């Protein structure tokens, strides 16, 4: 590679990385997961949720109870979703936590094939953004095709 091409390549690579990084930092103010935005210890927000399985016949069963060989705490991994019924800190901010919870409901709906009765999962979430008054939001997974399970 010629010297001129090398200089241009170097310049381009550096500018791309710098702009990309600055873009990620700016994106962090609106994105749920804030990748490469380095917003650390951003909130003291807390949250809790009542999460139920709604069965095809209309029963609402808390996910605290194991079902069809599944347990909520084992299925949701380690992103702050265990012990959801207990009010606790949203480590990476409440938007991040709620996004994980909403996605986790869909993941559970798709990845519990032994469950032949749950139509969808629903979480009624109360969250406190820093020291502000509580707010409530309801998340619902997509419907499962129970008859096909």
């Amino acid at each position, binding site marked *: 590679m010629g010297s001129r091409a*090398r*200089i241009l390549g*170097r*310049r381009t*690579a*550096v500018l791309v*990385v*710098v702009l990309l*990084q*600055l873009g990620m*930092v700016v994106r*962090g*103010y609106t994105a749920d*997961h804030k*990748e*490469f*935005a*380095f*917003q*650390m*210890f*951003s*909130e*003291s927000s*807390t949250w809790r949720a009542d999460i139920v399985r709604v069965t095809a016949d209309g029963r609402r069963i808390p996910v605290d109870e194991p079902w069809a060989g599944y347990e909520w705490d*084992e*299925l*949701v*991994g*380690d*992103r702050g*979703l265990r012990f959801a019924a207990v009010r606790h*800190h949203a480590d*990476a901010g409440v938007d991040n936590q709620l*996004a*994980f919870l909403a*996605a*986790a409901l869909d*993941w*559970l709906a798709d990845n519990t094939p032994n469950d032949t009765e749950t139509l969808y999962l629903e979480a009624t979430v109360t969250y406190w953004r*820093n*020291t502000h008054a509580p707010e409530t939001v309801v998340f619902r997974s997509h419907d499962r095709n129970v008859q096909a399970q």
Partner: protein
Amino acid sequence: MNRFDHALGRLVSMRALALLRIPAGLIVVLHLRPFLDDARNGHIYRDAFTEPYAAWYPELPRSLYVAVLWLGVAAAIAMAAGLCTRLATATTFGVVAYNLFLSTTHMHNNRAYLVVVLALLAVAPCGRELSADAWIRRRQGKPPLDPSAPAWPLLLLRFEASVVYGASAVSKLVDPDWFGGNVTWDRTVRDRSDMFASGVPDWLVSILTDRDFHTFAAKVIVLTELFIAIGLWVRVTRYAAVWVAVCFHIAIELSASVQVFSLVAISALVIWAEPATRDRVVSFDPAVAAHRRLVAFVRPLDWLARFRLEPGSSGTPLRVVDRDGSEDTDVAAAVLVLSRLPVTAFFALPALLVFGRGHARARPKAVASGS
């Protein structure tokens, strides 16, 4: 633009990156260990909730995924040792980055920073020193490879390092809850019972949970991060910023669970060393036991290759001639030397306030005068 291109292409020592490569490799092993522990217990990431970034992102069969993690460990050890450094570093980066982008649930700030560090180490020739590769070349009688290279990977890594502090600071600065002290106060109050349980004295808990204290403390935290982000770029504040950064990370490590973040961030501080080697001369009297002890200490711990050690004639005081020609002697010289060694810098840098510049330091003599 010419100045920009010149700065990117200027040949500088890669010593700091060679040094950073070693802890970075070991940190990768620590980083991958929980994934491998889970795998040993029969669990991998997709046995629990995951959220892929993209549907097209390749997911490996279970056994191959675990094998890739082990490949990452092997590559990281080779990277730390400097064995087939370029390949090992690129492989380490590839494995850690692949694993990070498998799922949004894998993303953490400390891992993002680790990936950035690995990416820039992978594109820099950081295996020509402090490496098994260099040792093997010596054993084969081959001349050493040029340890200098264009500065752009080092400058990019400096940019990324300062972004970590700067982005964190700005996000707190623009958030009235944070800058006003609500966030830290709320967190501390909620942790009050944990503080009592861990033996923190009552009077300290009382201070730490006082609302007014956090009105002040939040601003100190934000300004500290800003100072680190900016101070690292300014020559006169660089050492202070490095020292403050180490304190800052120790405080974070003691008060929060941040995985490998503190290790990555403290290790990465070596990149702020001037990228030139052997540009300070230490002259000493070999007949003086104290001089010999200092030299014996410096020789193996001068990991950034800052000093040329030159025995002087009998009666020579301990003297350090800095890169700008200024001189320090005796205690001031010893303190200056210790403040430039990575393992002693944290302890010796404050002593520079007493013994350093402006305190019995000989300024360089003018070498020419105009008429």
